[in-house]
C-alpha cells in the first residue's frame, strides 16, 4: 500500500471497504462520490469493527498515466509532463499524488491549466537522496508508466470579484501552483492587479524568470517580483528576505486575496504576516509542501 503524508492530506493510501463501514475520521476530506462507495484513507483508519478491504479501482480518484516528457528548468528543478488521463478534472493550483512502480507516493502541485495545456505539468525540485525526485531524475523517461491520484486541494483561482488584488507568493517550487493560478486568473479575465513574488536562495533558483518576465510584459496588471536571499543577482532581482520585501513593496494588503505556497516554514510565517498586513483570514489560501513521512 503506498502512503506519503500519513496525515490524511495526499490520499495516496486510499482503499475501499467491500464490507463493513469505515470510521468517519478515515472518510473525512474525501469526495462525496468516493465516500458513498466506501472509500477511505487507510492512514487515518482505526477500524471499529470488521472491515473487508480492497485496493481502489482505476478511475476512482486514481488514474494510469505515462510520462510524456522531462526537462530541466534549472540545475535543480525539472519539469515533468504527463498524459492527462481521461476523467482527471482539475483546477490549476490543485495537487496530485504521483505513485511510481515502486509504490513511492509523493504529492505535487499541478502547474498547468486544463483549458490551456494538453498535458499535466509539474515542477519538481531534485531533493538529495529523494525517493521520487531521484527516481524521476535518474530512472524515469518519456514513456514510463505511473499512477496519478487526485486532484486535491483548495488552492486555486475562484474569485467572485475579478477586480480583487491578488498576491501570489512562493519559494522554490512553490512557484508551480502559483504559475498555474496566475495563468488561470489571466485566462478567466481577472482585471485586478496580480502580484507574483518568487523567492529563491540564489539566482539560478529563479527557474521561470524569463517566462514570467514575458508574462509581465504581455499583461499590464500582472507584476512579477523576483527575489533571492543571496546575491549577486541581476538589477531587476531583489536581494534579501522575501517577506520583508513583499510588505515593503505592497504596503497594506487590505482587500487582497493571498495564495502562499512552498516550504512549510515559509507558508506558516507568511500566513501570519499577510493576515497582520490586512488580508482577511478567509482570503488566505495555502499549499504547504509537507515532506513525506516514513510509514
Amino acid at each position, binding site marked *: 500500500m503506498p502512503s506519503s503524508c500519513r496525515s490524511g492530506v495526499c490520499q495516496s493510501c486510499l482503499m475501499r471497504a467491500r464490507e463493513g463501514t469505515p470510521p468517519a475520521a478515515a472518510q473525512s476530506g474525501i469526495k462525496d462520490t468516493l465516500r458513498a462507495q466506501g472509500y477511505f484513507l487507510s492512514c487515518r483508519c482505526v477500524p471499529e469493527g470488521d472491515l473487508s478491504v480492497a485496493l481502489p479501482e482505476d478511475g476512482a480518484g486514481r488514474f494510469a498515466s505515462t510520462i510524456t516528457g522531462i526537462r530541466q528548468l534549472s540545475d535543480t528543478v525539472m519539469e515533468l509532463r504527463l498524459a492527462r488521463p481521461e476523467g482527471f478534472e482539475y483546477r490549476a493550483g490543485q495537487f496530485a499524488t504521483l505513485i511510481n512502480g515502486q509504490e513511492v507516493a509523493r504529492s505535487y502541485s499541478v502547474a498547468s491549466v486544463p483549458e490551456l495545456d494538453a498535458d499535466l505539468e509539474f515542477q519538481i525540485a531534485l531533493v538529495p537522496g529523494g525517493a521520487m525526485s531521484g527516481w524521476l531524475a535518474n530512472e524515469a523517461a518519456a514513456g514510463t508508466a505511473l499512477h496519478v491520484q487526485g486532484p486535491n486541494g483548495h488552492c486555486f483561482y475562484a474569485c467572485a470579484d475579478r477586480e480583487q488584488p491578488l498576491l501570489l507568493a512562493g519559494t522554490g517550487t512553490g512557484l508551480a501552483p502559483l504559475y498555474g493560478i496566475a495563468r488561470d486568473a489571466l485566462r478567466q479575465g481577472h482585471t485586478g492587479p496580480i502580484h507574483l513574488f518568487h523567492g529563491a536562495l540564489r539566482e539560478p533558483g529563479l527557474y521561470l524568470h524569463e517566462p514570467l518576465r514575458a508574462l509581465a510584459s504581455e499583461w499590464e496588471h500582472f507584476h512579477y517580483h523576483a527575489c533571492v536571499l543571496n546575491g549577486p543577482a541581476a538589477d531587476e532581482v531583489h536581494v534579501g528576505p522575501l517577506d520583508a520585501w513583499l510588505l515593503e513593496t505592497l504596503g497594506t494588503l487590505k482587500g487582497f486575496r493571498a495564495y502562499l505556497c512552498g516550504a512549510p516554514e515559509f507558508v*506558516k510565517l507568511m*500566513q*501570519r504576516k499577510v*493576515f*497582520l498586513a490586512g488580508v*482577511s*483570514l*478567509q482570503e*488566505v489560501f*495555502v499549499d504547504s509542501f509537507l515532506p513525506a513521512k516514513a510509514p
Partner: protein
Amino acid sequence: MSTLYERLGGEAAVNAAVDVFYRHVLSDDRINYWFEDVDMERQAAKQKAFMTMAFGGPHNYTGDDMRNGHKHLVEKGLNDSHFDAVAENLAKALAELNVPQAEIDEVLALVGTTRNDVLGR
C-alpha cells in the same frame, strides 16, 4: 425584543469582527504566544466559533467543550490575566467597529460567563 446577536448584525458582523479581533490578539505580546503553534488555516473557523459565542449567537459548544478545549492551555499556565487580555482585545475590536458601548458591555458579560470553564475551575 431582538437578541444581542441580531442587534449586533448576526453572521456578517461576526465575520467583520473576527479579523479585527484576531489581528489584535496576534499583536498582543501578553497573549500571542498562546497562538504561536495553532494552524492558521483552521483559525478562520475557530475564531468564528469564538465570536459567535461572544455575540450570543447559535453554537453547539457546551461548558464542558470549553473546559476540554482549553485544558492543555490551563496545564501550561493559562490564567485570569490572559482571559482579561482576550476580553480587552475583544472590547477594543468592537469599539473600532463602532459597536455601541451598551452592546460591548453585554458581550463582555456573556464572555465572562465562560471564565470558569475556560480556566478549568
